[in-house]
């Protein structure tokens, strides 16, 4: 039985894979967008480090699922940079979902 996705693992993977996608992308506009998303994700991961993340919340599960979707899109885009636009959309959804989780921690 596959293990349940863990946000830390998925988010770490997303940031590392997004780095690879940025290095592989040549188109300047997409590259700029991806760099901006990398910064946002990096900030979100930073907000989660050394914190007790509430794993039983809807926000955690939604964020983890969104990051998983984003990771699939990034993997596709690394192999075919023409798919970068779809990756950008999915990453944006993931950032939004993680922001909601971080908001719980800050509350």
């Amino acid at each position, binding site marked *: 039985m596959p293990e349940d996705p*863990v*946000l*830390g*693992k998925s988010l*770490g993977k997303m*940031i*590392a894979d*997004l*780095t690879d996608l*940025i*290095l592989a992308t040549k188109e300047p506009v997409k590259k700029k967008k991806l*760099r901006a998303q*990398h*910064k946002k994700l*990096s*900030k979100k*991961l*930073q907000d*989660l*480090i*050394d*914190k*007790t*993340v509430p*794993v039983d919340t809807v926000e955690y599960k939604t964020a983890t699922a969104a990051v998983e979707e984003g990771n699939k899109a990034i993997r596709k885009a690394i192999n075919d940079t023409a798919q970068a636009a779809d990756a950008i959309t999915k990453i944006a959804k993931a950032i939004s979902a993680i922001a909601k989780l971080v908001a719980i921690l800050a509350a």
Partner: protein
Amino acid sequence: MKKKETPMKKYERMFHNRFPILAAALVAGLVLQGCGLTLAQKKAVGDFSSATAAVGKTASSELATMRDEVIAMNVSRIQLKGVEQDEPGLDKLEEQFTVEATMTRQRATDALRTYGELLKTLAETDRTEDIKKSTDELLASYQGLPDSYRKMSKEELDAVAKALQAVGGFWVEYEKAKAVKTVVNNSNLQIAHLCKLLQEDFDPGVDGKLSSQFLNTTERLLVDADEVMEKSKNFTERAAATAALQKAKENRLRRDTVVKALSNSIGTVSAANAELVKAVNSKEFTVKDIEALQKNVKILSDAIQVLRR
């Protein structure tokens, strides 16, 4: 008239009178010597202890390296791009690898190392001064653990200290076996707890632990260095960006090899320790996890050698 006893006769008479006492002491000694660990048990203790001491020592040194590298990568990033919004500045170069956070983890790795070293000493030497030195180090490291890392009760710690103080003299094998059992049995939960916390810290797959910081700092530098490289207009900028890219890529490799192998090794220490508990308490036991630990330590050692080249 009573005949005067010759010295030889006197000696013989004394010997015969005391023979039962001497014989009983000899038999007791032989029996107690026989109550030491079997060769297989000694091998299990020796194999486990060497590997565990190596894991503790490597984890301590790797923590210090990760902290140094996080600081160095942040310095590189600031040199390349200055301090940007939401990114750590010169006052936060170490990010989550603060002195306090690093020292807390190092106390835990020290406890793991001294546990391994004491068992190794008990398995390999009869020198009471060596045993005393290893004992003092283990007790000090256990006592130095922060509350969140402590699982051992005062009674368990006292029992360990008492068993170790008794080692020495004629009954050394018997007392050593007794000490090994007491140390292993009473440390079981403590070692499992330390391994869980440390394994998580070295596993980037666990939410929000120290290795996530290492990952984040590395990836941030890679992206920033790539951007500077792309926009650079002169040799100096390109040289700085290239050096930063190289540093970040080396740390990526460190994360994917050494840090990963370390997390796996720490996880195996916990399983091997549970196996060791059975090994010291029964003459029938398996060494599957102890052998897995040795294999993981070899992988860890190889990974470190590759990065040093």
